């Protein structure tokens, strides 16, 4: 795959340095995005709230999902920022929690995860409706600390938090498959749904390799993060970044964010957090890199992210070639059966 971008040619896969220009914006502002540094996220959910308020996203319930402090479940039509909480029976980097060996009983993590996973499988869309409609997963019933076992079963502990958001991919599958042109690439390089155009065909929902965009049951249209398109046009930063009290969510020109992120990973590695790694910043990955990328402290799938996403459009030519071969076989067979049967 060549890395040169030929102007005027629509590209489906590979490195693409200027998606806004590729989409036809001649003079445009620099591409912007989010660098979400999960190492400083405190799980306050100010981003979730600010997003809801600014964008007037409907309420989707204050649900106790049994997933640590996560009560929005996953990104969806009515959840454009989602804070994930992961409880691990392992320390973070070189940290010492001080609880290992203390006689306070077994950890409930395994029990909690088993309960939630079992509950999710019984929900209508396998949990895909979290953040869209109310689901009752029940609460995991945890044994009283120390009731069952002694100090030998006590584990170390760390708590990961991460504010997830639409990735605004360089090669956005939702945008590629949208049949109405409702989804479009803005001058900032972001991907936005035009609500007056979308007819709710649902193709983008199945196209997205991250499970971000969804159809809102209340109005039948696809919804997702707009990266606060209206605020960007007025020179403001998106609501979530504005509200974030720890600078976990950083907004800015993508080039600058990538530099900042690389420095932050190096710093964390030096300070004894070897798990720190970036997710989505690589312009040569399966989606051409994302405008919203992350610093993670564990494998992506632990946060509910696909480890190696690709845009399905990568195989567009291959798919149509096979469809063409199937058509040729079909036509040949049809001609053959009539020729064999002859005229009457």
């Amino acid at each position, binding site marked *: 795959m060549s890395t040169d971008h030929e102007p005027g040619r629509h590209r489906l896969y590979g490195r693409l340095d200027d998606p806004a220009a590729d989409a036809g914006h001649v003079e445009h502002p620099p591409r912007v995005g989010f660098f979400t540094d999960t190492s400083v996220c405190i799980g306050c959910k100010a981003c979730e709230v600010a997003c809801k308020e600014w964008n007037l996203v409907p309420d989707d319930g204050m649900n106790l999902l049994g997933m640590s402090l996560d009560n929005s479940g*996953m990104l969806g039509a009515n959840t454009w920022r989602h804070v994930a909480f*992961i*409880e*691990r*029976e392992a320390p973070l980097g070189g940290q010492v929690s001080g609880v290992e060996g203390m006689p306070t009983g077994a950890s409930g993590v395994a029990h909690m*995860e088993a309960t*939630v*996973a079992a509950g*999710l499988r019984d929900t209508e*869309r*396998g*949990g*895909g409706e979290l953040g869209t409609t109310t689901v009752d997963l029940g609460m995991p019933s945890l044994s009283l600390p120390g009731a069952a076992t002694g100090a030998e079963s006590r584990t170390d502990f760390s708590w990961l938090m991460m504010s997830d958001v639409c990735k605004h991919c360089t090669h956005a599958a939702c945008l590629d*498959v949208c049949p*109405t042109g*409702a989804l479009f690439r803005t001058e900032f390089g972001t991907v936005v749904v035009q609500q007056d155009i*979308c*007819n709710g*065909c*649902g*193709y983008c929902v*199945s*196209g997205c*390799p991250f*499970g971000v965009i*969804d*159809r809102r049951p209340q109005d*039948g249209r696809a919804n997702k993060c707009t990266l606060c398109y209206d605020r960007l046009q007025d020179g403001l930063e998106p609501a979530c970044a504005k509200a974030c009290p720890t600078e976990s969510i950083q907004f800015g020109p993508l080039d600058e964010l990538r530099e900042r992120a690389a420095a932050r990973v190096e710093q964390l*590695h030096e300070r004894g957090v*070897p*798990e720190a*790694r*970036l997710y989505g*910043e*690589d312009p040569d990955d399966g989606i051409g890199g994302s405008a919203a990328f992350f610093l993670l402290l*564990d*494998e992506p*799938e*632990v946060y509910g992210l*696909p480890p*190696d*996403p690709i845009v399905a459009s*990568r195989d*567009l030519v*291959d*798919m149509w070639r096979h*469809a*063409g*071969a*199937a*058509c040729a*076989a*079909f036509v040949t*067979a*049809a001609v053959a*059966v*009539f020729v*064999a*049967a002859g005229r*009457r």
Partner: protein
Amino acid sequence: MTQGGDGRALETGTRTFARSRRGRGEELMVPPAEFRSYYGRPVLKPPVWEWKIAAYLFTGGLSAGSAVLGAGAELTGRPALRRAGWLSALASLLASTYFLVSDLGRPERFHHMLRVAKPTSPMSVGTWVLTAYAPGVGIAAMRELVPTRWRTTLPGRLVRRAARPAGLAAAALAPAVASYPAVLLSQTAAPAWHEARRELPFLFTGSAAATAGGLAMVLAPRGEAGPARGLAVYGAIQELVASRVLEERLDLVAQAYRTGKAHQLRHASELLTAGGLAGTLLGAGRSRTVAVASGAALLAGGALQRFGVFEAGVASTKDPRYVIEPQRARMAQRDAGSGSAAG
């Protein structure tokens, strides 16, 4: 993605699944027998599409196959087969239209599909193919519906005059109508659909031929249904072979086709299609009863196949294993190789 971790083995969040193997005793490429996820939650969004989309996959293919039979019968002088073909093509096209429009979140905005033509969207391509295909089917079928006493009126004469070119134009687009839905499903993140991108077009056109042949065997007299039987035999064989190849070629994701509801539907489909194929080959040319029974079996088999493929795709989005494990395997393969291979 930059891997900054030191590969520290964290047991937390690890769920162990029975390791799947391929029938030939070959080891899976997936290195870990366990995978980690966010509370077992799906990574992808399961489709918002309902049963109507699966039903459309069936009726759309049926319409395309019937149009080909109608046009062939027109050219080879088989009026009863022609009538059966065009009326079937129109009826299933109308059903398709209903299924497609009513499954939209905003059905009253269906015409927004016509404001752009996007080659990157198989749904846009399909919309335009159907838009070009539908009028021909309508005119060709209308000739079959014009009452005898109106044949000599001006509208009657116009329809009769236009039916042949219109029908032939529609039949020329029929292969595209039959095959584009395969591309539509494959261009999604649903692993069971995307990974099956090479087999689905053959499965769908085969199924279109088998079901259209089957319906014509039910509707047209034996004497004229020879080409319908031929098309049904071709279609049924291709449908059965593509279905087998698909299961064999997909690694882990084949489990989405081999288990659960998808398996039940596809298993029943294969029995019906194989039965219909046997009946078509052995007795449909001699006995009207066998022809009707075989045709009905082929129709049912084709319908269940489409529902089975649909269910497999949905199932593969609900279980994060289908997303995470193949991606991990791909990454491991890339790391092991020269690092140049992409997916």
